[in-house]
């Protein structure tokens, strides 16, 4: 969808995509779009996925805009300055995806902290999340996470999931990565 923020063509206007997540409150979308317009970005489309929620319970928004590479960097910085959570920006490709299962006391061990830790310690991003309670067992639930990782960093992402899960006594079912075996 977007590409081309190399310094070589810093003055050429190109399409870029930013993925944001917004708190579900009035005015939040407008607050997020302001820095784009103010810094010379030309809005192409705004996809506001109001029906779905990110792992942190926020609303994912995908914005396509046109601007130069230099402007794009300023746009992203000013979005962050405005307190908008930028999940993905421009040329950062999340080329590899892995799915893992987590089970155990997901809720009582602070689920949102678990997900933030996973995203914080690697270059992986949680792109899909489903959770379900274990029937008849208190405080046990399972979750399926789809992680998008930058190329070559899948192993690091899985190491991180393992570490976070160990610390919280959660059980991980890792994918079989046949190429590595």
């Amino acid at each position, binding site marked *: 969808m977007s590409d081309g923020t190399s310094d070589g063509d810093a003055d050429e206007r190109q399409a870029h995509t930013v993925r944001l997540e917004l708190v579900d409150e009035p005015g939040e979308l407008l607050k997020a779009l302001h820095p784009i317009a103010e810094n010379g970005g030309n809005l192409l489309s705004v996809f506001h996925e109001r029906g779905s929620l990110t792992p942190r319970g926020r609303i994912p928004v995908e914005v396509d805009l046109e601007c130069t590479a230099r402007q794009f960097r300023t746009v992203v910085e000013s979005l962050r300055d405005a307190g908008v959570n930028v999940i993905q920006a421009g040329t950062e490709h999340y080329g590899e995806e892995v799915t893992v299962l987590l089970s155990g006391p997901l809720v009582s061990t602070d689920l949102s902290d678990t997900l933030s830790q996973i995203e914080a310690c690697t270059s992986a991003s949680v792109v899909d999340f489903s959770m379900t309670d274990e029937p008849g067992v208190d405080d046990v639930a399972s979750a399926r996470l789809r992680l998008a990782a930058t190329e070559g960093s899948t192993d690091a992402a899985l190491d991180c999931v393992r570490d976070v899960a160990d610390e919280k006594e959660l*059980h991980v079912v890792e994918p079989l990565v046949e190429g590595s075996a």
Partner: protein
Amino acid sequence: MRLAVMGAGAVGRSVVELAGEYGHDVTAFADSTGAIVDANGIDADAAFAHKERVGSVGEDDPSAALGAEYDCLVEATPTTLGDAHPGFEHVEAALERGRHVVLANKGPVAERYDDVMALASSSAGDVRFEATVGGAIPVIATIEGMDPSHVTAARGVLNGTANFVLSRMAAEGLGYEHVLAEAQDLGVAEADPTFDVDGTDAALKCAILANVLHGGGYSLADVDVQGIADVPSSALDLAAEDGRTVRLIGEVTESGDVRVGPRLVTEHDTLAVTGTQNIVQLETTNAGRLNISGRGAGGPETASAVLADVGRLPER
């Protein structure tokens, strides 16, 4: 060939029953408390009847079987961890007498592979152990046929009980305890299924595979093991929603890492076998990927692997 069969569980019994079909004579047969020895071939029916009646296969001391006339010792006593006692001592006694050894017992080659190979190298006898990995499936013979230097990695489903439990849980949406109890009723799981569900059994098989692929040096302690008891049915539901399922998979990697644990695979993955089926996948340098599947347990099935090994031995 004349066989001394140590161990009278399902595998030992089947070896005794089927030996004649493969052209061999059983000259000694022992369990933990008794033995029957006859240089002209034992009376198998009498031994089974004696076991039924008295609890042991014969009136002789078990050590009499070790000292009997035989060409190959079949070690089919229960797998033990650590020093692999008494299986290891049986192997040692046979090799020191220059006799061949065929193992169905995983202990000696999973826990003390280097010791067993050292004994074999100074003995006129050979050691074979096809039956220790994957039951009836010719895993070791396949690796040997390709030559271990051409097999870079191995992975697979190596425990039928764990696979039965996981595939039933996924298919029926039932909980772990429920399915395990059902497996015990069906005779798929033993009364004490600990080694099957905690991954130990699969880990022993992986240690053996690692020893074969990487020339020794591995024991259970070198395997990273995780069992299936902590996989809730809700996790299997979430996997199924995404076209995936969970299998207890053992892996020996090219770099020498060995691990066993529940892993996510796609529903139609070759490794996603159902029921008590086992499968082994080998990565080879010139032949790509090989998959061999079949029955990973059972008396006659495992005995067929033992007797195939006996057939591969050189004449003494």
